[in-house]
């Protein structure tokens, strides 16, 4: 499903070169639920961006869903994202001038799916997340938890093979946090979708099938002990 080989990312900031990601290997099998933890600035989001085909690495090869991502053109990568990769963001990133149902339809709109199919699929997913009565509300009229559920419905509307979640529970109350986490586990357990979740929260990470830890741009397999230490810290 995912195979990163010697992936590295450097940023140039004036005369300085910053290593956001040191040469790293990372593999995820299909249907796995992998959590990436680590402190801020450790390179988690950089890793996620590279996995999502949105940030070219400075070195190495990224094979995702059988494609050498950065050998593809920008158009081909966009098409792959649209059809096979779903994103969940910490800040939901809903389009403010669209209603909940329109936000959920958005990936299908980009794909050019028939309008009726778009609507029925979006309504079905909103119902699954108990938001059927909020379909015509704009994001500003929804609570944070409701917004994240709309965002989750948007992610799932294309039945992506890979779900990349960046701190999806960061801005949520405990109940909604659990609801979102359950939904992601359901994707993995019931629908066989692969989930890569980035989180600060080790209690969330612990629920994953596998946890990797990033520190200063380096990825290491986390142990139960390291997670407990981090939690205690």
């Amino acid at each position, binding site marked *: 499903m995912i195979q990163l080989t010697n992936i590295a990312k450097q940023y140039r900031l004036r005369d300085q070169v910053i290593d956001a990601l040191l040469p790293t290997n990372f593999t995820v099998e299909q249907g796995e639920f992998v959590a990436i933890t680590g402190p801020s600035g450790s390179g988690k*989001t950089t890793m*996620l*961006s590279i996995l*999502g085909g*949105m*940030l070219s690495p400075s070195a190495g090869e990224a094979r995702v869903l059988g494609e050498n991502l950065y050998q593809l053109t*920008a*158009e081909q990568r*966009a*098409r792959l*994202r*649209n*059809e096979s990769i779903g*994103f969940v*963001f910490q*800040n939901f*990133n809903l*389009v*403010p*001038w*669209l209603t909940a149902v*329109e936000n959920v*339809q*958005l*990936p299908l*709109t*980009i*794909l050019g799916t028939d*309008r009726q199919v*778009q609507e029925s699929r979006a309504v079905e997913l909103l119902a699954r997340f108990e938001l059927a009565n909020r379909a015509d509300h704009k994001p500003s009229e929804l609570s944070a938890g409701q917004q994240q559920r709309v965002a989750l419905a*948007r992610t799932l509307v294309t039945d992506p093979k890979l779900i990349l979640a*960046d701190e999806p529970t960061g801005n949520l109350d405990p109940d909604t946090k659990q609801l979102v986490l359950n939904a992601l586990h359901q994707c993995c357990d019931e629908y066989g979708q692969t989930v890569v979740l980035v989180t600060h929260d080790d209690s969330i990470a612990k629920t994953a099938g596998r946890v990797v830890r990033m520190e200063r741009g380096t990825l290491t397999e986390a142990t139960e002990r390291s997670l407990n230490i981090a939690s205690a810290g």
Partner: protein
Amino acid sequence: MKIHNLVWKEMKQRPAPCVAALMAVALGVAALVSIQSVAASSQTQVARQMNELGANVLVLPKSATLEDYYAADLHGETMPESYVTDIIMAQAVGVEEMAPKLCLPATVQDKQVTVTGILPRSEFFKKSSWQSVDLMFQEMESGGLGQSHENCNGRTCQLTDEAMKDLKSYAKTRVVHDLAPYDLLVGADLASQLGLNDGDTLELYGEQFDVAAVLPASGTIDDQRLFAHLHTVQDLSGEGPVVNVIEVMACCEDVTAGLITNLEDLLPDTRVITISQLVEAQVGMNRLMSRLSLLLFAILMLVGGASVAAVMFSNVSERRKEMGTLMALGATPRLLHRLVFMKAACLGLFGGVCGILVGGLIAMAFGPMIVDVPMSVSTSAMLWGCTGAILVALLSSYLPARKAAQLDPSICFQDV
């Protein structure tokens, strides 16, 4: 939901900048449509009047000025009446009718009036026998005066005999078929001032004249005149067979151009003037207005284009995160291009349509006050205005669209 719905909903969410850009575009189109419509309507009216006038060529003595002629036809300069025959003999193509005139000042009931001698059409036929030209009469009938030709473009060039026999129709046709030597046609205003009616008599230069007809009002200087047979007026003036002017009714405008050269060659000691020269000033003014509108359109379109570009740039900057999200969801750079261009095209189209409406209304409301002609909105100006507005909006959006397509999609992971 379709892609165009995205554009529309986004524009609806923040209408103010769009309206500002739209107004800038609309202003340019309105200027173009209104001024071009006024110019085009004026031009059409001038062309129509030229065609209707018929008497669109004047043959004057060399020393007479056009201003003198239009002041009162009383320039005092004369030329031989035989020039009329010369013109007939030359069979110049396009000569529809001729009206030689001689003007004479007179006093009637202590009022200064002008008596204009006119030659009835029947006299032209007599002229052919004066000249002893065997074919003349035949030419007059088939190839000379009243000749219809392909350039009439469907217009009725020939006057009907009935129209010419009706003396009152002189006010409109400026031609009569027969006029007795001591018959008078009296202009409407003058008849009213002198209390004259059909069948009355009037003394002129010691001679008794019959009022054959009081002419209907024409709104011209003719309303203040007396018209008598040319030869009678020549006798009264004592100047012999001379005329002040020969009005030539040529058909049609395109034929007139060639006719002028022919007449100038034929009568070198005369001034041949086409009325089209008189309208040149008006045509020139129309042309100036037309060019001015293009200049104004270009300037306002530059402003409109800059405004659209500013709106699109700021839109792309403000919506970086939304665009990043769209890219994360699979929008290709080409799709982002399309979104920006669709929005620009909408602004151009709506701006164009608003401009057409406003420009059309301005032309219809104020045009008649400016040029005093019935207005119609110029179709070509509408088409050019709308097309120009869309093109300018699209061109102005090229750089913003490029900027949008080059956005780093990973921006959606950051707080903007």
